[in-house]
């Protein structure tokens, strides 16, 4: 007997079921939206924190003072040596005059300081590190470079950043994992409720010789449709929530430290992630939910 692909039937049946079981479809979509929103919010907070700490990290630097016996030309040749160190992102040479100028900015009215001779300052390198976690090791390496007299570093702050970042992403990861598991269960149960009163229909199909896959496919498509709908709704709601929270943070003018990634910069990735999660949750939930009814 010819076996045919019934994809047209499965898809139209899936759509038909979504509308003919309107309330349960609505409930399932709401559940999917809620789960995606919760997971999305936590992820966005974590991503922003990571980004913010990254920014802070980039600004993090330390100063390496050049030995006073070195001429300026000699000193400048050190830049290459410093930048050759594995964890050094950049080593910018700053002359003592430049250092004095920037030090005096905002302090012009202080006559005592203004009259300081520039010899009080020393030529130095402003060194940015790539990875803040191995900063103390880098500092040792820089100290070891011939011609560097002294290193000035605020290591405490750097390590504080690392700690906060690690705790934040760890907590976010655990929360997301827990939420994922909870939401899968809730959705499977919602769909199970939605399919419960269709178990007779399933029994009739099975009695007429329908295979399990023939019965399952329309439910899978139904789940895919619900999942995708939920993902799109969640994407726009998430956008709204994000803008709202950004507005609040802006208003409180929370320290120049807070750097928020604009939603549109992440929009495609968020939509793709939501769509994939929604499709997986929807189809997976459907299959989980009807498994029991298929045993006729």
């Amino acid at each position, binding site marked *: 007997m010819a076996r045919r692909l*019934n994809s047209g039937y499965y898809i139209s049946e899936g759509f038909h079921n979504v509308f003919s079981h309107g309330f349960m479809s609505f409930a399932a979509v709401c559940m999917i939206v809620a789960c995606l929103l919760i997971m999305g919010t936590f992820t966005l907070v974590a991503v922003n924190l990571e980004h913010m700490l990254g920014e802070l990290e980039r600004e993090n630097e330390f100063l390496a003072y050049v030995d006073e016996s070195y001429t300026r030309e000699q000193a400048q040749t050190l830049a290459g040596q410093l930048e050759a160190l594995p964890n050094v992102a950049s080593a910018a040479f700053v002359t003592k005059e430049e250092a004095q100028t920037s030090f005096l900015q905002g302090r012009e009215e202080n006559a005592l300081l203004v009259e300081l001779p520039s010899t009080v300052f020393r030529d130095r390198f402003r060194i940015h590190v790539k990875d803040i976690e191995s900063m103390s090791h880098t500092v040792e390496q820089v100290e070891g470079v011939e011609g560097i007299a002294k290193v000035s570093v605020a290591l405490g702050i750097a390590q504080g950043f690392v700690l906060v970042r690690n705790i934040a992403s760890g907590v976010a990861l655990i929360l997301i994992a827990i939420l994922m598991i909870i939401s899968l269960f809730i959705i499977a149960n919602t769909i199970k409720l939605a399919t419960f009163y269709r178990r007779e229909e399933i*029994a*009739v*199909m099975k009695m*007429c*010789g329908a295979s399990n896959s023939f019965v399952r496919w329309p439910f899978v498509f139904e789940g895919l449709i619900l999942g995708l709908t939920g993902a799109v709704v969640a994407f726009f709601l998430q956008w709204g929530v994000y803008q709202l929270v950004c507005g609040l943070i802006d208003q409180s003018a929370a320290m120049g430290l807070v750097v928020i990634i604009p939603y549109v910069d992440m929009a495609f990735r968020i939509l793709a992630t939501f769509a994939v999660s929604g499709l997986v949750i929807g189809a997976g939930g459907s299959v989980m939910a009807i498994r029991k009814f298929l045993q006729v």
Partner: protein
Amino acid sequence: MIRLIDIYKEYDNGTKALKGINVRIDDGEFVFMVGPSGSGKSTIIKLITAEVAPTEGRLMVNGYNLNNIRPNQVPYMRRTLGVIFQDFRLIEKKTVWENLSFVMRAVGSSNREIRRRIPYVLELVGLAQKADRYPSELSGGEQQRVAIARALVNNPSMIIADEPTGNLDPQRSLEIMTLLERINELGTTVLVVTHEKGLVNRFAKRVVAIEDGRIISDETGGYYNGQTT
């Protein structure tokens, strides 16, 4: 062809529904199965459709050995049967046409085959004009005829009906039985479970009588005395 050899069935709760059933139904036969309520008739039907498995005994249905059938073969075995129930079991959200077409799709029929076959079976059961109705828009007798059409649509070698007239008035019941007789004359084996002796006695057919899980009589052209009903 159906063969039940020394079939025993004990349900999980300990009820002994069948106590040594031996029966053979050949292709082309028309058989009534009669007996009081609770005697085990529906259990025999469920064994044949592989809804339940026998506790003991051998069971053959249209060339399938149900004692060791693989689960993925069960749908194919069921396609050789057309099953009719007392409560019709139509899908309320589908029209008459859709109730039939989805059964054909389930076995992989093409749209062309569907368009050709459904008008034929609807004509056969006398519902050619009602293809676009929903079950709720039909009378009980009409709904049961849709169920018969659904049982027939995949051209099974055997129709099995469990109390098909239990919900119908005598006139409608007679019409349904006459329709089943007609289907049998067209070449399909028919097994009808009922306890309406008046109806059975209007047809001179083979009658298998069950009581308390045992066959107490099996006579062709038989007559249903129904002493215990």
